[in-house]
């Protein structure tokens, strides 16, 4: 239900706002006759907390007079949505991790293979061809043409 989502999000924002407020407070409000480093974050954090409280109250209030005929979309449209998302996220993190060791070319190749096969499975031929093409073409474009200093792995690639 919408109120649940708003409840969760407003609570999270309250925490975020408070964190900034507290930290901002430590930085000091005044400095040489004008705003200190802490003023702006503290105020913005305070506003965030205040607004989140408003959202929190309105979402609680809606619970009491709830109109169930307005059903909301499920959070994950499909049953294995969260699996795909998690895989995508992990693949991104894995890419970053492997980049240092395996270098750009190999990491990109593995990355493309993984995404093409495990998120929305394509035929193996497509996967291999696409992975090889993308990694080599992007290598040529980024490393050789644009001269971006992409990490080289242990193989020097």
């Amino acid at each position: 239900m919408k109120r649940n989502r708003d409840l969760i999000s407003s609570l999270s924002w309250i925490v975020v706002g408070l964190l900034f407020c507290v930290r901002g407070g430590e930085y000091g409000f005044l400095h040489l006759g004008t705003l200190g480093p802490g003023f702006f974050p503290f105020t913005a954090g305070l506003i965030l907390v205040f607004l989140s409280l408003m959202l929190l109250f309105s979402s609680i209030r809606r619970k009491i007079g709830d109109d169930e005929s307005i059903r909301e979309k499920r959070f994950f449209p499909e049953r294995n949505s969260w699996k795909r998302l998690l895989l995508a996220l992990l693949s991104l993190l894995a890419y970053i991790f492997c980049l240092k060791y395996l270098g750009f070319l190999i990491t990109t190749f593995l990355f493309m293979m993984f995404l093409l096969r495990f998120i929305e499975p394509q035929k193996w031929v497509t996967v291999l061809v696409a992975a090889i093409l993308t990694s080599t073409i992007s290598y040529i474009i980024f490393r050789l043409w644009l001269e971006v200093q992409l990490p080289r792995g242990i193989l020097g690639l």
Partner: protein
Amino acid sequence: MDLLNNLYMAFHIAMEPSNLFICFIGVLIGTLVGVLPGLGPVASISLLLPITFTLTPVQAIIILAGIFYGTQYGGSTTSILVNIPGEAASVVTCLDGYQMAKKGRAGPALGISAFGSFFGGTFTVVMLMLLAPPLVGFALRFGPPEKASLMFFGLTMVTYLSGGSMIKALMMASFGLLLGCIGNDVMTSLPRFTFGFLQLGDGLGIVPVVMGLFGISEVFLNIEQSLGKREVVKTRIKDLFPTRQDWKDSAGPIARGSLIGFFIGLIPGGGNIIPSFISYALEKRISKHPERFGTGEIRGVAAPETANNAGAGGTFIPLLTLGIPCNATMAILLGALIMHGVTPGPLLLKNHPDLFWGVVGSMYLGNVMLLILNLPLIGLWVQVLRIPYPLLFPLIFLFCLVGAYSLHNSIFDMIIMIIFGVIGYFTQKFQYDASPLVLAFVLGPLLEEALSQSLVLSGGSIIIFFIRPISAIFLIISFFFLLSPVLLKLSKIVSTAK
């Protein structure tokens, strides 16, 4: 005459071979991005920011601007042919455009939409050219308090006009302000919220944040569902040209669409999406046959298409003349300018006339290029639509990763981008709009600086914002809009109590 001199300079710069080429690349990418659903102008501008580093500031703005108004052209192609809007401002075009395509009139629809876009786009460039110098003259009298109030006004309007709950939009804006505080404080050079990470000294960086919020999160949202194949309308596109009657019918809508687009694009938060809806509604309202709208009425295509292009051009004006971005896209361009060492603001025209007029000139040329690209090359774009998303999204990921890395050759930026990808995903899921966040993130440090300077000027007194007339006006209007929901509720309570 000054104007002629400026025009001469504008075209002289815009027609330099390298700038011309860059403009062409920009509008080409823009059209491509506009055609492909799932990748909007904000996302693609974010993705291509890193590439602009190797360019001069003029070229950077030329290409980014080209992408932006290019997407307005491309988006209509898919709206008409496949009933899928390439991006938000083309949603309205689906209503009548697709109906026309089903009746075999895709050609005239595409033709009129391209021409309307051209007219709208060119109109606003002309207005930009005419209005900029006087606007700038006015803005040069702005001191820190006026700048601060203007930024506050911009933020307020964007939150007011953003879809969905205003509270949530304000929350996003506050969060954006907070994120802008991360980094070394401008006035004291002391690190704030950096938690010991030296790389955060200059702040989070607009590029990783924006690439994550719009690029990565968009992919996350798309891959939640199984990705089937897209079907393209099978009708052959014969008769690319609209009939004489079509032209006659469209003249009025195009003219009105241009004006609506321009004026609304000018207002902070107006953007180019709202004008498309408003002009469609207007045409329907004043038409003698409102029942025809939605069944394939060419006016329903001409008006919104013109309006969204005019609106896109209009949003440039506050950025280029006052240095105030009015929507997320302009905020990103502002960030790009700052990164290139150009300080936007009223002094832009004075200090970097080549940048200003070069961009103006290339906007003229860009619109011409787009007209040519969009008419004969329609068949090409239709083929592009056949690229399946499962193949596309890994490329988008790769692009984002390399782009983020290439900023400072740092893996850290990639991590920031991914974090904001996750944040962006959740904010969309919990129904928050990310535009106010981006605007606040970019404006935050500038606002803080302006506030500080104002207080130095006034010796610590807040009254200064209210005593100086221009600043006071901005603040009054802002508070009016901020409080309007509350006022509305109060008036309802009062009227039901009677």
